[in-house]
């Protein structure tokens, strides 16, 4: 009998978890929101998402193969997630070349130039979204209205987002109650009946995804909950001070990119802190910055800027905020 054995250090068993399995669970968690987007935006949602995912995976493959000269790791599905998230963050009538440019920025600049998966400082999809927002302000802020034109892509009927309506209205001296007719009810917001980015509108579908991520233990609750709590408390205080010019906290939670951002973008492994204490600091920071930008900034929406800014603080948070060690007291070694 051949008695040559494998000798390797312990442990000799593995949980079986893998990067691709985690990424696939994120993809699955995004599916309810994608289904709702297809229902609301129809053709545009499908075209934009396919172009985005395909181009992200392609750029990852090309860069790894021909610039890094390594075996492409597109099978880990991280580029698929980036592609999906980028698509979810843009309007469903965005021309194809802008999407491809965004994908190139996400994969090429935000991810690969830092060394690829695991090394990027900023969330690739968020970085690309902001790059596009600054480069193509018109195309990036023409929001197709849900259900209105399911069979059109570029020429879909567009309208403002609820956040833009409020920003504009307050600027023109209207009170929130005067705008009541033009902004959707809380229930409509919850169901996603508003103008907005392709995948950010339907709070209920994104919350189903959140539940899936928690059940499969892909993420912990800390980051999303700390963001929700901060936004709720912060906008709640403002609303109590003056409900005429500040929208109520539930409105703030259900509009714009809060749900998508808090559940899927801010929880990106690479660009978020490593343990609960740091996650709270990060989440509170994102929540506070979001409200500040929405209420006092020049953009109606601030989630992506808030996440990008807090991404930059993550290395610092990881460095200075440490988990509670077992046996907190140190017996000095003399």
């Amino acid at each position, binding site marked *: 009998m051949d008695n040559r054995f494998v000798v390797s250090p312990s442990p000799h068993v593995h949980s079986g978890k893998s990067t691709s399995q985690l990424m696939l669970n994120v993809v699955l968690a995004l599916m309810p929101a994608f289904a709702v987007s297809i229902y609301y935006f129809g053709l545009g949602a499908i075209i934009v998402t396919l172009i985005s995912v395909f181009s992200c995976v392609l750029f990852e493959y090309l860069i790894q193969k021909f610039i890094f000269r390594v075996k492409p790791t597109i099978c880990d599905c991280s580029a698929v997630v980036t592609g999906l998230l980028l698509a979810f963050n843009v309007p469903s009538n965005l021309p194809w070349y802008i999407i491809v440019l965004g994908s190139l920025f996400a994969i090429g600049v935000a991810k690969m130039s830092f060394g690829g998966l695991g*090394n990027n400082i900023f969330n690739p999809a968020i970085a690309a979204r902001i790059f596009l927002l600054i480069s193509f302000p018109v195309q990036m802020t023409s929001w197709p209205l849900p259900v209105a034109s399911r069979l059109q892509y570029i020429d879909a009927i567009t309208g403002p987002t609820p956040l833009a309506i409020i920003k504009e209205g307050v600027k023109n001296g209207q009170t929130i109650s005067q705008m009541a007719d033009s902004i959707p009810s809380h229930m409509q917001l919850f169901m996603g009946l508003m103008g907005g980015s392709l995948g950010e509108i339907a709070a209920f579908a994104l919350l189903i995804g959140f539940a899936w991520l928690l059940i499969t233990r892909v993420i912990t609750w800390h980051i999303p909950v700390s963001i929700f709590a901060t936004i709720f408390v912060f906008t709640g205080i403002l609303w109590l001070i003056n409900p005429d010019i500040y929208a109520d906290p539930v409105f703030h939670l259900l509009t714009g990119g809060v749900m998508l951002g808090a559940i899927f973008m801010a929880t990106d492994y690479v660009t978020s802190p*490593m343990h609960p204490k740091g996650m709270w600091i990060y989440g509170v920071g994102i929540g506070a910055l979001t409200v500040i930008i929405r209420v006092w900034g020049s953009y109606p929406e601030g989630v992506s800027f808030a996440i990008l800014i807090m991404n930059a603080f993550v290395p610092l948070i990881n460095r200075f905020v440490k988990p509670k060690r077992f*046996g907190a*007291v140190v017996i000095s070694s003399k």
Partner: protein
Amino acid sequence: MLNVLKTFKKGGVHPPENKISAVQPVEVLPLPAKVFIPLSQHIGAPAEALVAKGDRVKAGQLIAKSTGFVSANVHSSVSGIVESLEPVMDSSGYKRPAITINVEGDDWEPSVDRSPDLRKEITLSAQDIVKKIAEAGIVGLGGATFPTHVKLSVPTGKKAEMLVINGVECEPFLTSDHRLMLERSHELMVGIQILMKALDVPKALIGIEINKPDAISHLQSLAKSYGGIEVQPLKVKYPQGGEKQLIKALTGREVPSGGLPIDIGVVVHNVGTALAVYEAVQKSKPLVERIVTVTGKNLARPSNFLVRIGTPVSALIAAAGGLPDDTGKVVSGGPMMGKAVSSIDVPVTKGTSGILVIPATESKRKPEGVCIRCAKCVSVCPMGLEPYLLYRMGQRMQYSQMEVERVLDCMECGSCSFECPANLFLLDFIRLSKVEVGKIVRERKN
């Protein structure tokens, strides 16, 4: 049942339990033709051989003497003739000084009481108990092999308040402690009382995970007739058998970083150690045999054996149905912390709790991916460390920073490597770095 089961709070994982040999009663393994008894089966200085080639020895005879306070005697486990004093490879993979004995018959030292009668009365004083344990060469049988008499000698200025008995057996596959608790329970209880007397503590807590309900109920019913002993069922969670985790689970106390359990008034001993203590103190029987689980998914007959120290692992595997053809790895110990051996000729030593045979398909580690900073290693680390960070620092040999990040708190439980979705060799680099950081710390002390 609304009361929540006790466990330690921070970190931990739950690997598949695979306790396939749990129902197999302990069988006495036939004597091998030859035994190889290493002189260093414990933490501390190796023992010094007292016999020469050609000497005739009896089972239970002292053949190597402890060479310091932290060291342990070694006794012959068989009767026969000393064949050589050449080094022999042990489960560490190194050749170490050992005594090879050709087995002839089964003659025991006359002082050893081998009758099955239970001796309950403890007549010796605390001091004599510790002396007797030291003479018997008893070490921690849970796997750490720290000399037991050292743990029982409480340093001046410290006071033991409580004895914790480790019946957790959190390693998957292993069942030797489980069987011991079922089959040798009376002796175990007396052994615990001896330890309580040696430490002068009124209370002993036995921690057992609820995947051994028969052991829990059996010992609970016995505990009524032995004063001061209490059985505490625990939730199944690895590494609850770690000393610090077990104390935390049972008492809520935390051993300070760099400290010992005695710093918070606790002493922990394994159930196997307690049984060895009983035999040494009540029966004058030194530590020459132990219960070993031989197991594996493809093994014909996963079993628990009572084995003489020094028996080659190959004899155990043969008795368990032989080595399966597709074997890729043989581990001395459990799958989480055991050591892979390069040959099955290595001997069973005092610290061998099990032999695990792993099929070829599950033997090789998957290639390393890249860290995606998912933080799972941080969340499962029972010591509250950041394995991903220590791994990176270890690769860059940043040892002084690693000391600040408390790398020496790591007990190498392997939860981080087990959990890592990128299959990073987290523990490998942490383990290597611990050696280097340990050197730095020792140099500073000198």
